[in-house]
């Protein structure tokens, strides 16, 4: 049974000239548990909007998003927040660390709205990503590669079933990108989390056996990955 099942998903935005622009239009998309898949697409293709829909940040205009057996599309915002806090980890291109919080506090916040803060587990996660000596450092005191490592630790803090990674290496140099990607994949595997990564970077995509063209599934096509 797929961890994530998307069917007939549509999301449109109103443009400044008042017309409706359909950004997401997916016939069927599925991702199995504990698998890793990548979506390839150019900037502006709707990948981030799709991830926001899957994360419950945005509500679809129509269609179904079934995550771990729960239908997201029918849930109210508070319930979607709960699902996001307990089931999903999110890694952003720009890391999105909270600048006023230490590494440890950033990871603790990743737990706070879900299972609850656990300092020992947060320390362990930071140790796993090689930052055991940077627990009390603030993001500005870290390199970009280290910041992304904190973001990875935070994404795994709530023991998610699904990790969404939106261009996670887009702000990193080649070496850091390679290391970060390897870390994300290993950490997800260790934690039993499925990984859905979107990117336009061919070097990144080359690391995945399951790569779908986002443009093709975003035109009503069907895709099942991780099988």
């Amino acid at each position: 049974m797929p961890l994530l099942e998307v069917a007939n998903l549509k999301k449109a935005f109103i443009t400044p000239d008042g017309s409706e622009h359909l950004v997401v239009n997916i016939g069927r998309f599925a991702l199995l548990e504990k698998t890793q898949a990548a979506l390839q697409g150019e900037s502006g293709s709707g990948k981030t909007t799709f991830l926001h829909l899957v994360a419950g940040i945005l509500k679809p205009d129509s269609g179904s998003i079934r995550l771990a057996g729960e239908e997201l599309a029918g849930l109210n915002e508070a319930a979607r927040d709960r699902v996001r806090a307990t089931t999903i980890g999110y890694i952003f291109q720009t890391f999105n660390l909270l600048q006023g919080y230490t590494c440890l506090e950033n990871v603790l916040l990743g737990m706070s709205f879900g299972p609850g803060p656990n300092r020992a587990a947060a320390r362990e996660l930071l140790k796993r990503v090689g930052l055991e000596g940077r627990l009390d450092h603030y993001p500005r005191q870290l390199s970009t590669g280290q910041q992304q490592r904190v973001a990875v630790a935070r994404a795994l803090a709530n023991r998610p079933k699904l990790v969404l990674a939106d261009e996670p290496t887009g702000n990193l140099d080649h070496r850091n990108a390679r290391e970060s990607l390897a870390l994300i994949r290993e950490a997800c595997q260790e934690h039993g989390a499925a990984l859905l990564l979107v990117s336009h970077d061919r070097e990144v995509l080359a690391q995945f056996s399951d790569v779908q063209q986002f443009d093709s599934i975003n035109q009503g096509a069907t895709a099942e990955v991780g099988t």
Partner: protein
Amino acid sequence: MTLWLLIYKSLRQHALSTSVTAFSIALAGGLLMSVWSVKEQSQATFTGVNAGYDAVLGARGSKLQLVLNAIFHLEASPGNLAWSDFEDVRKNPNVELAVPLAVGDNFRGYRLVGTALDFFERSEYAPGKHFAVKPGGRMFDATLREAVVGSFAARKLGLKPGDEFHPFHGLIFDEKNQHSETYLVVGVLEPSNTPTDRVIWIPLAGIQRMSGHDPKAATDVSAVLVKLRAGSAIAGFQMDMMYNKQGNRLTFAWPIGRVMAELFDKIGWFDRVLALISYLVALVATASILASIYNSMNERRREIAILRALGAHRTTILSSIVLEAAAISALGMLVGFVIYFAIVSGVAAVMRTQTGVVIDPFKFKPVMLWAPAALIALGGLAGIVPALKAYRTDVAENLTPIS
């Protein structure tokens, strides 16, 4: 725990605006509590101080002036009354105790008041409390040029038993008006926290017969303190009628507390103006919380979006902003208590020097509870507007550019 961490971090991240707005709350709270406490305590003290007497009999004039002169040792005497008037009131069957007072001289600005030993031996300045001389001193001999000094005056003038001084004529100190008589200090009174502490007490005859005073007035007194017999409640009305309505030579200021209460009624507008200013400062301070948090919302949008992406509910964000505003008020009120104690201590020192009346900055007053509670609640209310803005923050829009 998470909520408090969010609030703590936000306060730290906006430390400057937090400090400025908290200080404005501190000023408002400190001012409000000070105005209220000084008003209540001074009113209670001034209307409660009567040196154990019910009324003051004096020359025809203002009751307030009479009370201020005879009880608080402020103001000039409205005039003298004859010894026979004192004798009449002393013999009145409704009067338990009548004590004559004579004023007209000072020593370096501190009043000399002539009185009878009854004032010390039979008066109760508070229920069950009599005036007492500190160890090493004694009460003056009514036939000699001796003085007993109130504790505050003794401290300020540096007088102690064995010291001698020459009084000065008049109630205001003027070096050119020194009397030739020499008075010996024989005792210092224990503090009573009443206006008595600011006075140098000498025998009645000392004032009456001081060189330079009119010999024709040598038996006159400035006022008579009157204590009515217990249970003769109607006596006050009768004497009020007799002296104030039927007579036209003398004034009977009774009851003392009501005379002072009338003064506070007359100057009540001043309290109300001060209270109004405090309320306005509180409103401005509250508005400053609203403005400072609201203005920071733009820079906070990304942070709010990140928190929401981590699973924080809208209500968590709303609560954190409202509580942050309330926390700024609460921090302000902590400093507000320091400001309160500073203001009231200053006022108390001035009041004690000028009137002898003592107010206690550390005395608990209900305003110390309701003013902080009201300002913290107002702070929380001020947080609602920016909190609603935070509540409506679009997560997707502020999280990352749509690709």
